[in-house]
């Protein structure tokens, strides 16, 4: 239904007229305290201060999932987007309406794989990432190989799409914080979720 440019127009419009704003640095620094806290709290077994980065990634994803479950209602109520007719449309709406509305950035939808009816996946490439604006990894020789700083975003998308009957898998494949040239997340559609039946109806 909504073409790419239509989604872009909608995103601009919602951002301009229906969203309260705040200094992006407050967001950046607040997210920073969350990640830093997790890095302090989640340590490898039998160590006092060696961060278990895999556990941090997982916790960030879980936090994001819980945000996504809520954020989708807010998103739908504000943007009035209806049901998407294809996963391609979903990708466009996530990038141009969702990210625009909540973070004022528009990640690029790239690297499509699969077609309708087959496993489908796409990439979101972030030119700008407000979550990571001031970030430098600790120079402990591990963080750059193990931590996905913005992993909360994967969870957000997973939670949000689950509420609109799409089970997806999302993870980062590159991050400029790791020395890569881009920051890219891959989102793979696992399946469309069927309506749940009331327990009494067999």
């Amino acid at each position, binding site marked *: 239904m909504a073409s790419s440019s239509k989604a872009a127009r909608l995103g601009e419009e919602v951002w301009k007229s229906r969203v*309260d704003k705040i200094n*992006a640095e407050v967001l950046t620094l*607040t997210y920073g305290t969350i990640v830093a806290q997790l890095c302090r709290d989640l340590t490898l077994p039998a160590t006092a201060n060696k961060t278990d980065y895999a556990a941090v990634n997982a916790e960030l994803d879980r936090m994001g999932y819980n945000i996504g479950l809520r954020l989708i209602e807010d998103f739908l109520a504000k943007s009035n987007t209806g049901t998407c007719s294809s996963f391609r449309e979903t990708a466009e709406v996530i990038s141009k309406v969702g990210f625009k509305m909540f973070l004022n950035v528009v990640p690029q939808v790239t690297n499509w794989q699969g077609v309708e009816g087959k496993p489908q996946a796409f990439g979101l490439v972030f030119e700008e990432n407000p979550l990571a604006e001031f970030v430098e990894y600790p120079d402990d020789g591990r963080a*750059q190989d193990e931590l996905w700083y913005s992993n909360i975003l994967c969870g957000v998308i997973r939670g949000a799409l689950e509420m609109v009957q799409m089970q997806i898998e999302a993870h980062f494949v590159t991050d*400029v914080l790791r020395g890569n040239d881009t920051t890219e997340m891959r989102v793979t559609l696992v399946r469309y979720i069927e309506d749940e039946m009331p327990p009494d109806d067999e």
Partner: protein
Amino acid sequence: MPAATTTTAAPPPPPLDFKNSDTIPVLPPSKHQPSLRYPSSGSHRKTIYDRSLSRPPSATSLPAFAYLFNTLITYHHAKSGSVSDIETRLNRAGYPIGVKMLDLLLYRQAAAAPGGFGGAGKSGASGARPTRLLELLQFVHGTLWRGLFGRQADALEQSTTKKNEYMIVDNEPVVNTYVTIPREMSQLNCAAFVAGVVEGVCDAAGFGTEGVSAHWAEGEEMWPGKTIFLLRFREEVMEREEGLKAGGGGG
């Protein structure tokens, strides 16, 4: 870059001999082994090392902040036993932000000042650190609040009973916009996070406190979310301030 890997075994540097030399010998730079990686190629470099700090901050959505802030509250709520425990944890979460904001805001002030960096003059215009108590309080009330929330705080008052206590009032803290407190925890004010930021600013500026805390203003009809930030400065800070006053230091 293969050049970096070809290391010719350099002779060990001669032992330093300060006594019998007019010049201080400069050690040859040791080979730098960077373990941090950042993107070096590409037409657009976007690491923090390439960005100007004085670039004005962009805007993002308040709901996005609210979701993160709520996540922070939920995280600490799950680990806390009491209301004061949550507030302490939120305060600690905000503290490092304050330490950073002091530097960042002063740096931007300096960059924006007419004389640019190094422009002599009063703090506040040149980016010098506030050295007097009133300057610091005005910095928090004005510069910090504007930097964080786009407007200054609503009032700045001194306690009538205790000399070392000051209050900064915010009628409607931005951070509490989407926070609903259940009745059984009605004492909880999540602006404790902002109190932590203020505490960080004060400490980093050399004005140690016995704590900064956030309290609901009682009996406010017009501003139900009105919050008072109570700053309690240490005895040494007050003594120093007295000394500066007596010495006639004009600032």
